[in-house]
């Protein structure tokens, strides 16, 4: 395993140092020399089926998941660790490919891989591979998901629900053909300037549970109501169509490359313009605002002029029978 590491894993990652003891030292740990600010740390275990899905793979997903968790805390990603648990017999070529995919994202976001570990379990004891990543970043101003004030505008950085729906569409048993791709992508550098130049009061990445879960959590923790204008939520036609076909709610479908931001009213227009000026944020939109009424609740004004609560999603959605 030592040779495998040195020859085939380590060279994939171009950034391997963020302090005086780096990855190449293969010491018991690495050190970090952090820039000024508050250090932010996050950790995630990544499993996904299939390992390769339209628009991405588990390597890319692991890197983006970690980077994005740091970014939505207001932090610039600095370093990350990677632990791999492999099923005996897992193809080394596939692993190499997945790591390359992971490395590309870390490079793109200036995140150094500083420590790692590999373990192997018996065949059948796990499904292929589990990647666990821990990320460290530094925030000049920490952004919570609880800081929304009444009057703040709510923005999303792009179309909602692509990742979840792309995975559903790729499931063999549905016999569906779709050109929909996962949105899995890093939120850095997309959000760098917005964080620098505008007053972002709260932020979250709408992963599990989608936009509905993110908004509910933000409303509850901030003690504000949120009023959402349904037609302004960017949704791809394929996402709408798949959701209709399978009886799923696109607002509950996961994203892996989007953020929901609350921005002080005076800065909302500027934040939107900054996002839209970059290719990854071209479809960003203002989708609603925070209110004093109904603290903790999210109200959705529907496209036909109806009105309802947008509730916290529960469990994994199952397709309906008709």
């Amino acid at each position, binding site marked *: 395993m030592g040779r495998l590491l040195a020859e085939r894993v380590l060279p994939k990652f171009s950034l391997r140092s963020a302090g005086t003891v780096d990855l190449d030292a293969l010491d018991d740990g690495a050190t970090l020399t952090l820039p000024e600010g508050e250090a932010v740390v996050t950790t995630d275990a990544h499993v996904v089926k299939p390992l390769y899905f339209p628009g991405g793979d588990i390597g890319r997903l692991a890197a983006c998941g970690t980077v994005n968790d740091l970014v939505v805390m207001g932090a610039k990603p600095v370093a990350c660790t990677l632990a791999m648990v492999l099923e005996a017999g897992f193809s080394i070529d596939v692993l190499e490919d997945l790591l390359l995919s992971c490395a590309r994202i870390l490079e793109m976001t200036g995140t150094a891989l500083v420590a790692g570990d590999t373990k192997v379990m018996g065949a059948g004891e796990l499904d292929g591979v589990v990647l666990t990543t821990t990320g460290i970043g530094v925030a000049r101003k920490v952004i919570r998901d609880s800081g929304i004030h009444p009057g703040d505008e709510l923005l999303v950085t792009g179309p909602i629900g692509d990742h979840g729906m792309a995975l559903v569409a790729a499931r063999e*048993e*549905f016999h569906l053909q779709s050109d929909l791709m996962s949105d899995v992508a890093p939120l850095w550098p997309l959000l760098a300037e917005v964080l620098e130049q505008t007053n972002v009061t709260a932020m979250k990445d709408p992963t599990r549970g989608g936009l509905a879960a993110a908004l509910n959590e933000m409303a509850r923790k901030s003690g504000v109501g949120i009023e959402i204008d349904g*037609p302004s939520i960017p949704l791809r*036609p394929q996402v*709408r169509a798949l959701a209709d076909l399978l*009886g799923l*709610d696109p607002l509950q479908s996961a994203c892996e490359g989007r953020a929901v931001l609350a921005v002080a009213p005076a800065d909302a227009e500027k934040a939107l313009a900054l996002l839209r000026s970059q290719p990854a944020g071209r479809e960003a939109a203002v989708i609603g605002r925070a209110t004093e009424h*109904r603290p903790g609740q999210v*109200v*959705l*004004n*529907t*496209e*036909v*002029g*109806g*009105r*309802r*609560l*947008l*509730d916290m*999603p*529960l*469990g994994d959605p*199952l*397709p*309906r*029978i*008709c």
Partner: protein
Amino acid sequence: MKTDREFLRNPQRAQALAEVLRKTAPQRPVRIVHVCGTHEITISAHGLRHMLPEGVSVLEGPGCPVCVTSTVDLDQAVQLATGGVAVCTFGDMMRVPGTELTLDQARSRGAPVHTVLSATDAVELARRDPGRDVVFFAVGFETTAPGTAAVLLEDPPKNFSVLCSHKLIPPAVEHLLDLPGTELDGLLAPGHVSTVIGANAYSRLATRHQVPVVVGGFEPLDVLYALVLLLRQLRDDQAKVENAYPRAVTWEGNKQAQDLLRRAFRVYGASWRGIGEIPASGLAVRPELSQWDAALKYDIKGDRGQEVAPGCRCAEVLVARAVPADCPLFGVSCTPLSPVGPCMVGAEGACAVWYRHGERPVV
């Protein structure tokens, strides 16, 4: 299709229809019942109740095939699976409680339970693995039943059989109307079921009970338009069948599908969870196809377990006498993750739809 969708969700047209509803509504409380989970989803997801005139309420009756599947049928499926037979069924049957276990719980204990999207998928599983017994646990109304009929009539493999729990909509509505104390001013008839049975299937019901019936589609404007026709009939004191979903539903229905149903099934008095036995409301495999009838092929029994828990008002919700929010358990001890009553279990059950789509008064 894109144009259809945009047309049928156009906000100006929706507002215009809402205005017509306000002008047409009689000066008294009106209770419209629908019997389709997809109608409930359209109404709830688009917040349509918010657009209705005061005094007009729309309630879901026995419109969720999953919710009304009896514990007896469910216990039989669980029994087959725990005995090692591969049981295939639709995803939303997985969490429906039997007397002791759900199919999901049986699966987590190692029983071979598979979710499929059609009876054909189950037949394919049986063909791929001829050494293994495969049972399709067939649920649903006239919409899913023709699919089951088609595979039964196409000489499926010997290791395949059907545990049949299909049910029929018109007898359930008649039963509802026959129940003493039912207050029902109009029926919004289900679009999907009606594509198969045709709008004519409601004629007897409309005449006998003097109730307006309008077949409706599933886009927001479809539902609003159907409600306009229902309120017009009420205003003009009429009780006839109208078809507000002609782009999918004909008066005669789908003859081919009806023929499949006749050739594959016989009609019997089925037991509906929370309601009890309804005469001539269930479909069973015909005797000449008995080699594919799981109820005969295997020695399975089921005792009538507890169908509705104490305190749960599902029995009233199922016959449109209560709305989910009337139930003290709703959203408190009864949620889709830990459902107490059948209406919270099936994704199309009134309680589950209300819960998931935030259909509660927005003050």
